[in-house]
């Protein structure tokens, strides 16, 4: 048996790293168990000529394709959107595109404002100082003054516009629609020991330059220097509980595959919207037969993905091609509710700079634009470097039938039951996608683009795993309370995307990390009465 720790954190990604760093100042004995290992920047794809091919193998976004030893399988056959993630120190921040918007104030009050879903038990103002702290710790680039948001000031200047951004800006101005340089978790200057972005152009499958803010190079060095222990290659099987119903620790498999018990006073889950319900469901016992922290019956339910669509086309003038971070601008022209559109809530446009040449060739082939044989070269040369692309991130409303359960057959390499995802795109979101795709086409047509192509939904677009252990004040309608503590197990906390009540219509990493910092502060303020 291991020495008992004060705080056991499971998962070292976006939220696990943030909560570990914040709690470190308490001088408690803090341990984080991570099923993956440290990544090496020298191994990242953009070091090699095969960098585009590796997104189909060891840097695939889907764990079912990637199949690294740290990955666990996910049965997502019953979902039009497949789960994508990464399992290593830093979690999915190693493999994300670092688009870093905050949720909006209205996102926390959807029941009050629009009569759908539920309000959050906290609001934007509560999280605002944690957004700012997280921006500072993460190193965010952007530009103050966006009229789509309450005032905030990113610590670094924005990513360059480039040719693609300039074309998008001109087009959006022509339409009279909002656009703004994105808040990006990419360093544009030297920052906290990180080198600035040099426009490698292949941000998502990890940044060889170290400019992208993955938590292995942001929070973790600070947390470890402050005394937190991070133990890698340790896959947790279950949270254990005592006769008093309190969590006693966790059973995990170490790097040699040997089962170990790690006792702890407090357990914090940071495994995101699929990993967290999977672990809690796998922690069922005689006292908690439906899974730990599941007296509400809502554990695993209300899964939200942010269904994505992409609209792209080709313009005559050269765009940025393979150069520069893929995402540089957003538009929130259609973010807030306007019922005349036929749906409530809204969506965010992300303007994609373009793609590498191999990826362009594969995409053009899949879309039927690229002939075999004669004409191949001429056609390809008319396409490559001329792509203009609009990504659409729609708000997904919570629906209980969208859920994570345990697969009765599928297991990971340690024999632990794998998660099963059942999901269908809701009616409101479907109407929103219709509208958003039409507006995306408007943008591309206004830009003079040809060969328009729509992808709906983006199948491997399940980046955002939200809602499966929702927060709330009512124990019958939520899994954790307004500061992340399980209603059922008073020394068990959840700090990841699974506690989202609603999804908003923007990438959630920034908000997930702000929530983790907020929960850590709530814990620090209540140390003497934490379990009351």
């Amino acid at each position: 048996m291991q020495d008992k720790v004060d705080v056991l954190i499971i998962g070292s990604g976006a939220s696990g790293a943030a909560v570990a760093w914040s709690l470190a100042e308490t001088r408690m004995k803090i341990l984080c168990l991570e099923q993956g290992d440290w990544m090496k920047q020298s191994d990242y794809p953009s070091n090699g000529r095969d960098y585009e091919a590796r997104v189909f193998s060891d840097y695939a976004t889907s764990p079912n394709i990637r199949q690294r030893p740290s990955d666990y399988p996910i049965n997502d056959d019953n979902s039009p959107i497949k789960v994508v993630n990464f399992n290593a120190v830093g979690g999915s921040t190693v493999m994300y595109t670092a688009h870093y918007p905050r949720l909006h104030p209205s996102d926390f009050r959807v029941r009050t404002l629009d009569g759908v879903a539920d309000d959050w038990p906290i609001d934007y103002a509560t999280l605002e100082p944690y957004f700012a702290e997280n921006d500072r710790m993460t190193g965010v680039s952007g530009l103050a003054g966006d009229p789509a948001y309450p005032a905030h000031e990113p610590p670094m200047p924005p990513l360059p516009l480039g040719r693609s951004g300039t074309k998008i800006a001109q087009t959006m101005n022509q339409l009279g629609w909002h656009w703004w340089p994105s808040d990006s978790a990419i360093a544009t200057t030297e920052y906290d020991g990180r080198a600035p972005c040099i426009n490698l152009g292949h941000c998502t499958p990890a940044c060889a330059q170290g400019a992208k803010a993955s938590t292995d190079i942001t929070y973790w060095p600070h947390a470890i220097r402050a005394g937190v222990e991070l133990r890698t290659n340790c896959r947790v099987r279950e949270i254990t509980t005592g006769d008093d119903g309190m969590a006693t620790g966790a059973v995990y498999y170490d790097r040699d595959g040997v089962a170990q018990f790690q006792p702890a006073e407090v357990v914090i889950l940071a495994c995101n919207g699929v990993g967290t319900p999977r672990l809690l469901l796998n922690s069922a016992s005689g006292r908690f037969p439906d899974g730990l922290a599941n007296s509400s019956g809502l554990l695993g339910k209300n899964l939200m993905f942010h269904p994505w669509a992409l609209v792209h086309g080709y313009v005559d003038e050269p765009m940025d091609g393979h150069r520069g971070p893929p995402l540089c601008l957003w538009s929130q022209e259609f973010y807030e509710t306007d019922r005349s559109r036929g749906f409530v809530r809204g969506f965010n446009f992300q303007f994609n700079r373009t793609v590498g040449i191999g990826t362009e060739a594969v995409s053009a082939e899949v879309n039927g634009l690229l002939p075999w044989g004669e004409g191949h070269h001429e056609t390809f040369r008319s396409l490559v470097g001329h792509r203009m692309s609009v990504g659409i991130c729609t708000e997904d409303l919570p629906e209980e039938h969208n859920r994570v359960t345990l697969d009765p057959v599928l297991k990971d390499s340690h024999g632990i039951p794998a998660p099963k995802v059942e999901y269908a795109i809701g009616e409101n979101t479907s109407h929103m996608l219709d509208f958003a795709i039409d507006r995306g086409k408007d943008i591309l047509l206004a830009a003079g683009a040809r060969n328009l192509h729509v992808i709906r939904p983006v199948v491997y677009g399940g980046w955002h795993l939200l809602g499966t252990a929702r927060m709330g004040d009512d124990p019958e309608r939520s899994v954790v309370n307004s500061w992340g503590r399980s209603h059922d197990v008073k020394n068990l906390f959840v700090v990841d995307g699974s506690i989202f009540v609603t999804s908003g219509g923007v990438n959630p990493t920034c908000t997930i990390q702000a929530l983790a910092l907020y929960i850590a502060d709530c814990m620090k303020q209540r140390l003497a009465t934490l379990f009351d």
Partner: protein
Amino acid sequence: MNDHTLTETEIADLRCLAGMIIPASAQYGVPGADDDTIFADIVNSIGRDRNDVCAALASLRALADGASFAALDVARRSQVAARLRAEGGPPVGVLTRIVLLCYYRDDRVMVSLGLEARPPFPKGHELEQGDWSLLDPVRARKPFWRPAS
């Protein structure tokens, strides 16, 4: 160029098909995908996609009525390749993807497209800062985020 996962016939068929997907071009001064260096890269890159590639090549052979695709005359090869592309399903997509990704990382091909033949790191790329005065009309808008109360 010897790959134990494919037979000699399969390798010959694959090479022939790769050259039909992307032929050499005197106009652009580029080799075809059946070029020695590029095809060696293709064969060496099959890796975890072996089953799909083998399935695609089996379909190719079936469409060629069991004959070697590479041994067919030009007209017949064109017919068979067109049918494979139309009817071959996901395995053909995988095979084509491997051909395209290997082709478009070849030094000669990259240079012909005006690119440097190198990986992105460590040199990176230059990107124009752009004209931020384009934001002026957006800056002039009043805040339009929706208050929560």
